């Protein structure tokens, strides 16, 4: 995986230098020249790659040459596609529909939330005589796991109060990540602005856990262990105050980076095809199964990562809440 990423960057860096002639660029540039299809390089990239490979340089039309010129200096076409795939877009047209939404990630954030609500309601309606069936069984397993293994275990008897919040974190992150793997979609939690809000809510919950139990003064006194001599306090107070903020900060970065990395990897692996095709057509064709295989592998890994990250974010939130609710331990 590391190797292929390295190859990609090398290819992007070297392609313009080695072949200054504009006719060499088109297969790469074509990726950026068709905005309507850019939302899912995962689905589109192979066909793009196959087309120039089969049709050869006949596909290098004047319009694409113009697009290459418009692309300007410094930004390779491949990295632009990559960035375009993982960053937010204003005025996004979901699924290529004629209307636009203010932001791509906001749209998929709402979609993920609606999916969670739908799944939860479906689960609830599957209960008959107190026992679930179908979707309900799956949701219940996760709900019971979050309640017993995450909330109650790390927060103690106060855990019940925080269970709905932790469940919301878990299911939202899970659904956002899984839904983001579908073609034409995006992962809202791969955006730092979104994870900042989630970490902020987690931070508020952590503060609430301490303040509601010990009062504002008691809570902040609890940050530092009791009975420390004054010289140590001078060091400890800034450390503890800092750690109060680094906890949610770590939550924010961890979720963002994990969600982003998977999508970047998949996109980068699929980009290998047009990049290699730019060097040689045969290499491009040879690259198709390799690229698809590796991308598929990462895709499967991403399903695992979706669960892990949902678990980790929820778990750390619960641990931090527990730390403020029971500062003695």
């Amino acid at each position, binding site marked *: 995986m590391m190797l292929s990423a390295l190859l990609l960057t090398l290819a992007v860096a070297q392609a313009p230098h080695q072949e200054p002639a504009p006719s060499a660029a088109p297969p790469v540039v074509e990726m950026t020249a068709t905005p309507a299809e850019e939302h899912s390089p995962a689905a589109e990239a192979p066909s793009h790659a196959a087309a120039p490979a089969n049709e050869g340089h006949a596909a290098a039309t004047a319009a694409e040459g113009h697009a290459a010129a418009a692309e300007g200096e410094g930004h390779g076409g491949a*990295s632009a596609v990559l*960035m375009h795939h*993982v*960053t*937010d877009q204003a005025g996004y047209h979901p699924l290529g529909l004629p209307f636009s939404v*203010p*932001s791509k*990630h*906001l749209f998929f*954030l*709402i979609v993920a*939330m609606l999916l*969670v*609500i739908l799944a*939860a*309601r479906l*689960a*609830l309606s599957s*209960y008959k005589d*107190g*026992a679930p069936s179908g979707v309900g069984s799956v*949701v*219940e397993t996760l*709900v*019971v796991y979050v*309640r017993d293994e995450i909330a109650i275990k790390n927060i103690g008897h106060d855990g*019940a109060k925080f*269970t*709905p*919040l932790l*469940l*919301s974190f878990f299911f*939202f992150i899970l659904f956002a990540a899984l839904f983001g793997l579908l073609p034409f979609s995006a992962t*809202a939690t791969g*955006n*730092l*602005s*979104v994870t*900042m*809000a*989630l970490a*902020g*809510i987690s931070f508020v919950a952590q503060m609430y856990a301490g303040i509601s139990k010990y009062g504002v003064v008691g809570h902040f006194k609890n940050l530092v262990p009791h009975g420390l001599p004054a010289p140590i306090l001078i060091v400890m107070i800034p450390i503890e105050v800092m750690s109060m903020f680094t906890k949610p900060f770590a939550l924010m970065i961890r979720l963002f980076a994990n969600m*982003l990395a998977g999508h970047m990897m998949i996109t980068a692996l699929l980009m290998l095809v047009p990049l290699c095709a730019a060097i040689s057509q045969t290499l491009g064709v040879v690259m198709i199964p390799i690229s698809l295989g590796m991308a598929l592998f990462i895709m499967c890994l991403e399903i695992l990562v979706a669960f892990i990250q949902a678990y980790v974010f929820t778990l750390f939130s619960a641990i931090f809440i527990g730390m403020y609710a029971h500062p003695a331990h």
Partner: protein
Amino acid sequence: MFSNLTALPLLAGGLTDIDLMLTVFTLILFTLFVIVLSKFAWGPLLAAIDEREKSIREAIESSRKQNAEAAALLAQHKELVREIGAERETIIKKATKEAEDFRADLMAKARSDGEDIVRRAKEQIERESSVALAKLREEVADLAILGASKIVASSMTPEAQKKLVSEFVGSLPKVKN
């Protein structure tokens, strides 16, 4: 406030851009999301799970209690059976003993009665025989007298009478004076 981060070459390309509008939207939406879910999904779901867990716990508890009750009842029954067996044993023993005693009593009584009867019979026999003997003696005496008188009457002569009286008188002791 994070815009200076994007100046770093490593983080360039807008990956780490913070869109505060999106953050605010997320905050509001996620808060609503949590509230809606808590009220309409997690709340009832957790309540249903709790309810079922409670009912299962209660069912186990009650079955355990019933088990214990049944075991206690069984022990009680066993004890009862044992007691009844013991009681039966004692009753039989007692009855046997009573019967034995009764038999012994009866035997003793029968023996003593028998002996009594025999004794009385013997006594009576003795008495009867003595009476009979006495009567016989009387009869014999009478007959003897009768016979004697007859003989006497037929053979008595005045001389013999005289001689007899004189003999008798002669046998009488001599009276002094």
